[in-house]
């Protein structure tokens, strides 16, 4: 239950701090850490909660933006990066970067307190 709650909390707070463009893009690393400390679960669970929370959020946002944009920009960026011009690959890379960082942040937090 706490696992599911963590995922939602991570996604919600990551989105909330992302609204403020003046805050650094990695602000969710800090908030994930705090959530993992406040809501302690097992380290591996915590990693997946952070990864799924941020990864799903980023994938969802990118997917929605891309659909509304008719893939105009993603197709170009996927040539620059280079991902063979595949917008799907670009969305996956976006999600993986968010997930990896989100997961690691939550994992770090999980080592602070033992789960009750």
């Amino acid at each position, binding site marked *: 239950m706490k696992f599911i709650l963590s995922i939602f909390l991570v996604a919600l707070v990551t989105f909330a701090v992302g609204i403020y463009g003046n805050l650094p*893009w990695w602000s969710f690393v800090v908030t994930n850490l705090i959530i993992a400390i406040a809501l302690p679960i097992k380290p591996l669970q915590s990693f997946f909660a952070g990864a799924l929370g941020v990864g799903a959020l980023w994938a969802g946002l990118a997917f929605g933006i*891309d659909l509304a944009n008719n893939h105009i*920009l993603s197709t170009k960026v996927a040539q620059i990066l280079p991902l063979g011009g595949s917008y799907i690959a670009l969305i996956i890379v976006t999600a993986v970067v968010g997930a990896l*960082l989100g997961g*690691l942040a939550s994992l*770090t937090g999980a080592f602070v307190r033992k789960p009750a």
Partner: protein
Amino acid sequence: MRIIPFLVSATVTAGLVFTLNVQLKLGATKSPRLGYFLSPQHGFWKNAEKINTNFDATILANDLKGEVDVYMDDRLVPHIYADHDEDAYYVQGYLHAKYRLWQMDFQTRVAAGRLSEIAGADKLSIDRFFRRLGMVYGAEQTEAYINENNPMMKATVEAYTAGVNAYLKQLAPEDLPFEYKLMNFEPENWTPQKTYLFLMFMSYDLTGRSASADLQLTNTRDYLGYDLFDQLYTNQQDSLDPIIPKGTVYADPSIVPVQPAQADVAYLKKTTNVDISKVVETPEAPDPNNGSNNWAVSGTMTKSGRPIVCSDPHLGLNLPSLWYEVQITTPTHSTYGASFPGSPAVIIGFNDSLAWGVTNAGRDVLDYYELKFKDTTQNEYWYNGAWKAVTKRVEVIKVKDSADVIENIAMSHWGPVMFDAFYQNPQSKGRNLAVKWTAHNPSTGVETFYQLNRAKNIDDYSKAIQLWKCPGQNFVVATKSGDIAIKQQGDFVARWNRQGDFIMPGEDSTYEWQGIIPFEENPMIKNPARGFVSSANQKSTDASYPYYLGTASSFPLYRGISVNQQLAGMTQVTAQDMQALQTNNYNVFAEQARPALMKFIDKAALSKDAQRMVQVMADWNLYNHPSEKGITVFKLIWDSVETAVWSDELAGSVIPLTKPEAFVLLDQMNRDSNFRVADDINTKDKVETLKEQVMAGIEKATLKCIELEKNNQLSWEAFKATRVLHLTKIPALSRLNLPIGGGVNIINATGENHGPSWRMVVHLTDEIEAYGLYPGGQSGNPGSPYYDSFVDYWAAGKYYRLLFLPKEKLKQHERTKWHIQFKKAVA
């Protein structure tokens, strides 16, 4: 707390944040900061514009005097309706920034020699070049002059600046234009000086070729000797059809420039032998094809009885485009056309009463003077038998991830010393060279456009262009009342024959410019009997004009012939006929050069493949249409013959020399088949004839043709592969391989990355009938559907009908989509 796992995990997390937050080396370039770039709430995803974006908005702006309504049409062209002129320019600045911010910022930083600041030490040589050429110096001169003497333009540029900055102020970090995120830098506030820097850059683009050409001509003359030079780089163009028709009688000149006494020895034939030292790369010289077409036909030639104006400036084809369409309507005037993001007003366009267009004059307004310094401090130089002191101008170049670079530029009375002990390029050959350039003088060019936007008749047009100094242009005009005219205007130096073609001695005042040609004596023609006026960068006059125009290599010859030939036969002209003429692909050069080549071809003596290729060329219809193969074969054969004829004369030089213009060889072929230069000097025991050179050239070209044929690339569109390049040259942001014909010497002057950058046709009927487009789109955002929305239409040779209507009509027009309202915040 599990200390060790915590520390390991924390370190890995921090390391990853750090890695994703810096630019990583990616071959020769740098990656964006990947975490930031990919973050859907911060990075590039924010620039992916909804395809059905609603551009309606209400913008609160306390700097305004009144309210401003902007209606956006379906092509995202803003129609600005303001109660005060300054408000209109404020809103123009705001909209330029909203749609083109990165481009304006980037281009003016390049002009100011500040590219290293964002791109690092790799770009230092480009920055040093622009600093030493006096780009910032020139912009400062203009700014100081306008602030002191021209309150109206000061207010105009300041209103524009305030508009740009109002946009910047409300711009959230996550909404920065895409390229800032990609290249990792940030916008800075606009200033009036940036507007003047932008206009300096246009002066460089259109007159800066002398900065390399004068050095090349000097080196070529030194290498060949003056007599041979004068034969190969002749100023005589047999087939010239000038802007002002041949046979026009000119009044006696008010300035009679005198060639200095010893110039034959000291200047024209002088040779210099200095070691090359401290050689740096310089930026690519402006494209020699920077030019344009414009013409006006009078009511006597048109179906409606009203004049038509056409203008298509040929410049580098870039995304975002140099141009941004706009309508500006205030109680004082109403105008529509192409504007420069970076500058207020409409640059090429029309108003209620008249339409105007420009082409480049091509006149030489940049000269080098060679200086002798007293010692290595470079504080004094020899002038008229005495040592004269320089002042030192300090320019600091900031370099990304590196220490500042200081340029100490010696300022002589001629101008900035561009080349000296600290700065040399392969062409400058160790000389100390001061540069004198009309663009260094204060410019009132902004006011020319401001006044043209408001002009009602030929007198107003004349007063407006009288303010124009640099870069010299051919201003075409036609009015609703039926007048047509063209005038070549700018500050042009009254030169003696060949003055300034080469580096001049800087120690002698007799080599000074002896005056600027008065406005009244600049070439002009109004309502000629032939019913049209035109220009296509050819020489403006024949040899009876009393001033020296500059080297023939500055004046392309064949487009002008083509335009005049086509116009001369026309009657009952419509706007559609004029569109067809602007996109005409007829090759008048090939019309003359193909028979000249054929004369020398002995078909039986050619290889089988070569015979077949000659046949492809012979069967060609002389149109540079996209699918034609004959033009590709013709071009390769001509180039190959030219190389065979010229290379042995020029190849021995250590520094690369430019080959003579195409007309030189063509004129020689038509005059004399025993042309001396045709002889290959590398074969001592035999005298080559032009015929042998042509035959050898064809065999060489055939190899290339066969290779292209195998790869299916012999068609003109595949060979030419026209592209509209993003300013960073990143292919993914560019449009490549466009299916379009035309080329050098063609009215449709579309080359590989160069050509008609704005096509406009204006029929001066009571309600103006105007058409136009440019190869780009109104939005500079690569993530917008409006980024390149005109490109395919442009390539296909199609036009948009331009909406030029009063507010009440436009508001209700079916093509009007959005409304942006600017108003003061309620106190």
